């Protein structure tokens, strides 16, 4: 490996090492939480609901839960990691190294992405043991999950960089992200909602992400797959460019 590769690998390894050192909190807790959702909404409530659009309710719900695990963990990892390092001052060690803004941004982003991917994969494996979970459109599923993970990893970086106290991160996650995810159709189909909530759901960007992932697994969607993929790609690219600009300027990182 050359110098730049060693540098990037170390920056990324530090991010992965951080969440692996507290894996009960960063891997175990989200897995348990998802398992509880599957148990309560799938097994208990699902036995009353029967089928949604011809799909077993528990199978309908699981793609949304996988997407939710991926997104929340990607986001939470990066926002916490950056804020903690800013708080401790430890981020100065990376900032005073020869690493470029692009290297720093990618390393921070990939830390959260890997954690999200790990939790999502474990959720998928656990769910597959409990129910017969199909993968109907793998060529949609893989780019959709990749984009969802990377989008929320970027969002986590953005919030972590902007945040000045832990409250700022908690606010973004609890009062913005989680309501959008829950109201984006993880547990239900938008067609079941009365107006104006059905129309309002279409203004929630996460609704499109959930539908993409659901389409990848069970072949059902309430939105255009091509359009959703395109919009998600554009949104992820835009967020990445915003973050790159912030890192280049040293926004709230360098005095």
């Amino acid at each position, binding site marked *: 490996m050359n110098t*730049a590769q*060693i540098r990037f690998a170390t920056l990324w*390894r530090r991010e992965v090492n951080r969440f692996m050192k507290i894996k009960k909190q960063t891997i175990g807790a989200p897995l348990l939480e998802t398992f509880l959702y599957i148990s309560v909404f799938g097994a208990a409530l699902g036995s009353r609901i029967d089928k949604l659009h011809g799909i077993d309710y528990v199978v309908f719900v699981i793609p949304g839960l996988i997407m939710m695990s991926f997104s929340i963990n990607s986001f939470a990892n990066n926002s916490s990691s950056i804020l*903690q390092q800013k708080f401790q001052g430890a981020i100065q060690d990376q900032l*005073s190294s*020869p690493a470029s803004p692009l290297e720093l941004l990618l390393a921070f982003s990939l830390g959260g992405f890997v954690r999200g991917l790990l939790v999502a994969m474990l959720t998928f494996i656990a769910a597959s043991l409990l129910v017969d979970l199909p993968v109907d459109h793998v060529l949609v599923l893989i780019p959709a999950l990749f984009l969802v993970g990377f989008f929320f990893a970027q969002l986590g970086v953005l919030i972590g960089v902007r945040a000045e106290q832990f409250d700022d991160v908690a606010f973004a996650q609890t009062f913005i992200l989680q309501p959008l995810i829950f109201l984006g159709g993880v547990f239900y189909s938008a067609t079941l909602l009365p107006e104006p909530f059905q129309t309002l759901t279409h203004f929630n960007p996460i609704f499109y992400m959930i539908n993409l992932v659901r389409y990848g697994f069970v072949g059902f969607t309430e939105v255009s797959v091509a359009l959703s993929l395109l919009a998600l790609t554009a949104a992820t690219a835009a967020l990445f460019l915003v973050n790159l600009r912030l890192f280049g300027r*040293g926004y709230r990182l360098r*005095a």
Partner: protein
Amino acid sequence: MHRLRGVKALAVDKLEKRYPTGVEALRGVSLEIKPGELFGLLGPNGAGKSTLIHCTTGLAQPTGGEIQVFGHDAIANYADARQAVGLAPQEPNLDWFLTVAETLDYHAGYFGMPKRERRERTKELLETFSLTEKADERTRTLSGGMKRRLILARAMMHRPRLLILDEPTAGVDVELRLELWHYMQRINQEGTTILLTTHYLEEAEQLCDRIAFINEGRIVGEGTSAQLSARYGVGNLEDAYLALVGRKELSRSHIEVEAEPVS
């Protein structure tokens, strides 16, 4: 930029730093440190010492002027400039999640050092700074003195040519302070250029080849300890410093020593 011809370890020219709050921390600072020098930067709190260091290491972005580290522009060619610098900051900015050994290993990795070399260098510096027994302990469990040692070891990990020590002996016991003095002198004799900021004037007098006084964002005096004393018309560096900050009345020469009672 005529002042920066000829490679200096650090060449700062008309450096300015104005924070978004409007505070002018640096107002046209110029100074040069020759390769191999042990250079002291003295000044009261808030004078601009740390800001100058942060601008040199990329932790702050200058709003005017120029900095070169061994001929590399610290802005335009920041990667080469930062590669040449090791920073031991004033505040212990250690990562609580990492062990002592990991702290050193990651730092060297950020500077592109290969794995085998990192392992050997980590072992060497753990021994040098009496940290071998603490290698696998998390940094948050270390005492203040141990943290100070680790910060210095971390700054040395990638073998910087310019070592910047921002008040390295603040709050440490006498034994560790003297250990650090010996270490600074040794690595300086081995060729590492050192920029030292300190509030301990005897430390600067004892260790530094040359000293600069910085006050209100400006370099107001530069030279050897004797030259600075002569400039302010006083007998020692401490009185020169007190003259600089306008507190001559605090000079030790004004303290009356009570006669020992004769039994």
